[in-house]
């Protein structure tokens, strides 16, 4: 443990001249799961913060190597469990890059629509829990009321609320159910007012402002050096969004803004996410208006499961179905790294194939993992109570950090 003090403490009177090491977590409610922080404190000041992770490690990257490509999708649901469709998307895009598949227009539009709804749902959990950590309880109920509507939509499309596995290699599990567009439209119409409602709950609140403004400062250079991504990086004034920088799934066709704030603190990251919800809503509205009838699966009979009806009436479809399920499909040799803009930041998938139905290596670059590694830089020199606010502003999910 380091005993030298950062310069800002030199003026503080320390009558007892003692430091104390305390363990925050792994059962602390504000650590959003099982994160343990080892804090060296001088009074109420944090001298040194050391995150201790791994309590939720389940060896997912090992497991991928023993599962066929299509079986890996369900594992990805369980990483960032607040943004499962984003994980699905990153995984299937990497596999599709290796296979060289062309995805039909309708499937791409539905992917964008579902991902943006999921992004809103993920930000709603962040907003609710972040406000709860700081002491505002009401916000939580409003957020979860809206999130419930999104989860119902995801359930209607995929059958699962938290583990949808809706995106498959080569397209989607199935087309949207009838009446889905009407339900999304209803949600979109309501949600635009809900965001304004959230603003009235928190944004003008003096206590909330005092708890967040100027707390957890990280400059733009430091943010890039520490590898921050997503809303945390944009809160430090860096205009970077992978949806714009390296567009995927047709994001280049959508008209949306990338919110950037210059304040580099907890407040800036709050404002970025609040504005991002509106932009996601805007993309969802556009995606809905772009939906045209068409296939939702690529024309690749050796990779994509045939329709139920075709399987029962055509011999070749039955053979393909049997081979895909029993033996899997061969993926050409090679390696790819595909990054998407998940709700927490850059979610990258490194996938390596030696041929055959199982990947040789799958590695996930989790945005929460890297954003958390910058926590000591932001927390050292702040009060203990502010550490809670900083963790909330990073929006970490331990399922993705520990994998």
């Amino acid at each position, binding site marked *: 443990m380091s005993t030298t003090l950062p310069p800002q403490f030199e003026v503080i009177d320390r009558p007892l001249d003692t430091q104390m090491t305390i363990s925050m977590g792994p059962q602390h409610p504000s650590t959003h799961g099982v994160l343990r922080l080892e804090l060296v404190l001088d009074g109420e000041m944090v001298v040194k913060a050391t995150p201790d*992770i*791994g309590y939720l*490690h389940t*060896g997912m*990257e*090992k*497991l991928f190597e*023993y599962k066929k490509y299509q079986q890996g999708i369900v594992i990805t649901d369980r990483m960032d469990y607040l943004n499962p469709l984003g994980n699905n998307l990153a995984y299937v895009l990497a596999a599709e*890059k*290796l296979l060289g598949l062309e995805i039909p227009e309708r499937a791409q539009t539905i992917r964008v629509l579902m991902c943006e709804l999921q992004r809103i749902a993920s930000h709603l959990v962040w907003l609710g829990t972040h406000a709860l950590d700081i002491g505002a309880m009401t916000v939580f109920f409003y957020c979860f009321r809206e999130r419930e509507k999104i989860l119902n939509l995801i359930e209607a499309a995929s059958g699962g609320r938290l583990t949808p596995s809706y995106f498959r290699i080569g397209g989607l599990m199935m087309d949207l159910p009838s009446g889905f567009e009407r339900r999304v439209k209803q949600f979109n119409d309501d949600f635009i007012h809900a965001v304004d409602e959230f603003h009235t709950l928190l944004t003008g609140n003096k206590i909330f402002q005092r708890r967040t403004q100027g707390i957890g400062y990280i400059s733009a250079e430091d943010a*890039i*050096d*520490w*590898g921050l991504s997503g809303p945390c990086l944009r809160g430090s004034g*860096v205009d*970077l969004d992978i949806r*714009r*920088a*390296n*567009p995927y799934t047709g994001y*280049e066709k959508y*008209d949306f*803004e990338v919110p950037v704030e210059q304040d580099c603190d907890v407040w800036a990251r709050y404002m970025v996410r609040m504005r991002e919800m509106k932009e996601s809503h805007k993309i969802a509205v556009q995606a809905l208006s772009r939906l045209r009838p068409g296939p939702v699966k690529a024309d690749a009979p050796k990779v994509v499961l045939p329709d139920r009806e075709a399987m029962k009436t055509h011999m070749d479809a039955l053979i393909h179905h049997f081979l895909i399920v029993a033996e899997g499909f061969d993926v050409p040799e*090679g*390696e*790819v*790294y595909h*990054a998407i803009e998940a709700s927490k930041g*850059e979610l*990258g998938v*490194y996938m*390596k194939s030696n041929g055959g139905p199982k990947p*040789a*290596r799958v*590695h996930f*670059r989790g945005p929460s*993992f*890297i954003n958390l*590694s*910058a926590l000591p830089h932001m927390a050292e020199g702040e009060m203990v109570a502010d550490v809670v606010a900083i963790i909330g502003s990073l929006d970490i999910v331990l399922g993705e950090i*520990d*994998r």
Partner: protein
Amino acid sequence: MSKEIEQGHVSEQAAITPGQSGTPSPLVAALQRANPEWVGEVVEAFGEVTVIVPREKIVELCSYLKTAPEFEFNFLADICGADRGPEEEPRFEVNYHLFSTRKHHRLRLKVLLNDDDTHVESVTGVWRTANWHERETFDLMGVQFDGHPDLRRILLPDDWEGHALRKDFPLRGYEPYSLT
């Protein structure tokens, strides 16, 4: 304004996609001009560029790529190890995925390591974010990063034996692990 940015990105994208009929991409050409010693083998596939780097050159090359105006790889997106299997030589790969927040291009550097000498110099001095990436690679793959300020296990317990993502490590254990 967003239109202009978008078009800028598209042309940037077109510039880094590998050229037709085997001509190397501009990134590799610029790298070879700067110092041919840095470039071992070059693989261009799936629209991505991989440069295999001699092990002792990695830190020197990364520092250059971070600041050189035609590259500006100021963002280290990812480091991950890969095991080719115990019978392969060289056995381990360490992949560095570089990204530029201004030019928006990507590059993969690869260092190959033999089974009996899994040491490579740490790039934490170049990007601070490499700290946890390298700890994870050390924890799960057993690659030793020389010069790392705090090379401890990160996901598995400190007294864990072996490195879980190596191909000769079993998927299922046969002895219960006790935390006490």
